[in-house]
């Protein structure tokens, strides 16, 4: 199990809380376009995908300190809301597919 490897194609850059949220929502992080620096996936991205709606509402929950993360636009991430997949079992979200 420790042998799980990531490749540039399937490595997702997202903090633990975001990976947990994705598992809770059953969202495949690899289907998301990250709005953080360099494409890092943020909580707002997952919330937006989960609600299938625009990202703006979720962004409002970010405190000022993380403006860098939430400030960027998340463009087409709402389109991926429907691409959510169930993540039970061996293939989980956090070892999913890179967003780029």
């Amino acid at each position, binding site marked *: *199990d*420790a042998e*799980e*490897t*990531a*490749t*540039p*194609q399937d*490595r997702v*850059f*997202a*903090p*633990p809380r975001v*990976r*947990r949220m994705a*598992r*809770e929502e059953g969202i495949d992080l690899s289907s998301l376009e990250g709005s*953080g*620096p*360099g*494409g*890092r*996936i943020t909580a707002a991205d997952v919330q937006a995908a989960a609600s299938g709606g625009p990202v703006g509402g979720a962004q409002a929950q970010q405190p000022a300190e993380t403006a860098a993360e939430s400030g960027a636009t998340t463009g087409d991430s709402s389109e991926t809301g429907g691409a959510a997949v169930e*993540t039970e*079992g*061996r293939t*989980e*979200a*956090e*070892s999913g597919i890179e967003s780029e």
Partner: protein
Amino acid sequence: MVVGDVTTGTDVLIIGAGPAGYVAAIRAGQLDLDVTLVEKEAYGGTCLNHGCIPSKALITATDIAHDARNAEAMGIHADPAIDLAGMVDWKDGVVDQLTSGVEKLCKANQVNLLEGTATFTDEHTARVSHSGEGQGSETLEFEHAVVATGSRPIEIPNFEFGDEPVLNSRQALALDSVPDSLVVVGAGYIGMELASVFAKLGTDVTVIEMLDSILPGYDDDLKRPVKQRANDLGIEFEFGYTASEWHERADGEGITVAADPVEETAADGGSAEAIEDETGESLELDAEKVLVAVGREPVSDTLDLEAAGVETDDRGFIETDSRARTNVDHVFAVGDVAGEPMLAHKGSAEGQVAAEVIAGEPAAIDYQAMPAVVFTDPEIATVGMTESEAEENGFDTVVGQFPFRASGRALTTGESDGFVKVVAEEEDGYVLGASIVGPEASELIAELGLAIELGATLEDVASTVHAHPTLSESVMEAAENALGHAIHTLNR
């Protein structure tokens, strides 16, 4: 919990109270599950009783004496005397404090503690047999089981741990007098940690290793300062040999350990190659004791896993998914018995995940930032990918490095061997891995583990202000070096 020849039920049966099992139990208790934790020997398992804690206690204590003895350049003149029996007493006190703490924490979290040896009887029942006072056995029905039975040291032919001069790590950590001389078989992390402790206690130490270098699996640049320090401590190495047998010496003054050269074909398929002995001749090493530290194997053969339908791989490890689940849906396995890396914190992390998954939470374990530490002198710590692993995984990488000899804080401690190395993805600078050899490597690696988990970039690490003067500045400087603008080292 009723003890006797009766059947009781529990939501979660956890077998083994090491750092994997007791953490699973505490977390399960916090999640309001009805938990029973069965332990046959001692709360805290190998780690607290015979592993991490006792070894680190002796390493730190011998270092206090060693550092003072070797601080003449600093104007300190000391000739400390070490009373090993006293040191071992102190160490035992530390262990007692921690293991009784574990017991208390379990109880405070409503974990039912049960002393005894558990074996599966079918998919939903286990028998727990008690030896000693409360002799007898009882049957436990469970909804979920977590196997956390750990590992044990591997024996090699002709070296039986029961025989007096042959020691495993557990026995070595309990010695109460310093052997004059010691042969250590195996230059893995346990062998190297203990070799250093005994060398600092004044023992003549010789290490026999099958492969051609210490610490198989670690990069050469990380090993170099450790090997150098070991040489400085007077530790002798015999690479490319395997210990074949031992016998009492005729003069009654100790033992002789015989070792054979490894034939090239017999060498482990690992990256380091075995050296063929030119002459092909055997070695004979005189010593007072011999410590065998050639690795550990899972404890999966003594609990009738078949009765529960749980499968192991060919080395005996129980295979699990990232939810810590075995091939049987309601049975989980965590810690050493569930595979490499056999490290306490890996087991604890798996234990938490198992408990959370049983409670219905969407937990999963992710091995992308699993640290590993070797408490040699100096320490080695790694997390995430090495440069070559990153490249094998298809990343274009950029690497930054900072030598401790350029660190003001390192110089003020008199300990400035080693370096911090950071590996990142080239385009966006995501930190992928790090390795450190040098002072406080074990503590410094934490920041880089967090960096990897957070998806931090080199710039994030480099632009975080680090307090001066600290060793942690070296982490920042390594990140700056990868970006081409370190301040305290040249950027080439």
